[in-house]
């Protein structure tokens, strides 16, 4: 048995900056995880489909556009639909420019954790390892 943690690093929405996404992708890789990078400008439906086909343990979305309050609940909703389950077996993480006052709303809508700018990537990796859902 040789279980690997698989992570989808997703870029939902319109913003065209993927520096942050690439930094976190490398941190996951360096921690021994297999990272699937979605590429820019993906819809929540596309990300959910990828998460199912790639059978990932973690979906980590990076958003800088400010549209997180619409996009992230949509990602969670699509994941539930794709999986046909109310309770998700994937950890949903968000990073990017997300103001503190939005965190509560996002968590109420199925995002497991939100990492603001300047979060140490090692902390994200540690959190991920400790909170896998399967």
């Amino acid at each position: 048995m040789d279980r690997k943690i698989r992570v989808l690093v997703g870029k939902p929405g319109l913003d065209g900056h993927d520096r942050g996404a690439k930094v976190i992708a490398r941190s996951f890789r360096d921690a021994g995880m297999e990272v699937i990078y979605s590429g820019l400008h993906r819809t929540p439906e596309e990300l959910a489909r990828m998460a199912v086909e790639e059978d990932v343990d973690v979906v980590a979305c990076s958003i800088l556009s400010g549209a997180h309050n619409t996009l992230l609940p949509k990602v969670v909703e699509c994941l539930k639909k794709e999986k046909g389950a109310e309770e998700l077996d994937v950890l949903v993480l968000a990073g990017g420019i997300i103001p503190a006052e939005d965190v509560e709303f996002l968590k109420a809508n199925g995002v497991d954790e939100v990492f603001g700018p300047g979060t140490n990537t090692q902390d994200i990796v540690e959190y991920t390892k400790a909170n896998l859902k399967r």
Partner: protein
Amino acid sequence: MGYIAVARPWGWPCDGLRLKMSIGNPDGMVLYLHNQIIQGLRDRKRAALARAVTLVENGSEHAGHILEEAYKLRGRGKVIGITGSPGVGKSTLVDSLIGAIRERGHSVGVIAVDPSSPFTGGAILGDRVRVRSRTTDDEVFFRSLASRGYLGGLSRHTGDIITLFDAFGFDYILVETVGAGQSEVDIMRYAHSVLVVMAPGLGDDIQAIKAGILEIGDVFCVNKADHPDADRAVAVLEAMLGLNREWQWKPPVLKTVASQGKGVVELLDKIDEHSEFLKQNGLLEERIARSYIAALEDNIRRDTVDYILAKARADGSLDGALKQLSEGKTYPAAVAKDLIRQHLCLEAKIDE
């Protein structure tokens, strides 16, 4: 038992420790899990295929049962290997090929293999960046695989995973692999047709001469034909193929501009032509037999290596051998033969 899976019909447990501990009757669960996945493959549930790939890739205890059924279910998918140096445009070409295949009403599964880091075991699998269209098409399924340190750059489970895709019932199964090290030769062992992709401006003359490349390709494609050197690359390649030998099937050389979808319909036609050629000449069975031999080789090698090393660790003979080696009293090939004899109880000679 399996009540957890009933409550969450498509949220199957994986092999995580967490879940093992939370399930009272792991044996009941094992049965239930793989039966459900097999049924899911029959019903063409994509989550079932996705989880089956994970279990096989992880060498899970469920894998055997799933594969046994998958080998019975497998159908008539055309397995197309796509190889070539990094950056020549393989993934972009896969994107256009998916489009062309779907235009004709066929279904397609894609397996994209990228190398794992030898240091951390991690990997960044970036082929989806170029495969942008038809992500949510129900007749398309895309899976990224890491090589997981397997010699040759293909995942050691590639053969079994192709079978899972075939059991699911795709008309085409595309396997993209980085053309480095042994992987071209490896993909040849599993694919029915091999597409070798090259690009001008990437030292095509040198690539064309690269040992073995002319022998493995069934169809050649010079991508990035929007580049002025493309025609020269085609000419060089064709000349080399002409010199090479008498062909039963002379591999065609095509030009494509994958990023604009140019030449891709013609490319798909040639791939189909090659499939037809194999069928007409009774060669498809040969290729399929070749893939079984490859799968057997992989499994025998893996299992005997694991078995002998585990035995040798357990009874201390490995430590003993290492000590002798470090003292210069013997050499590795001799030790290996001793270990094989000792632990597989072999009387037989092992060839030099």
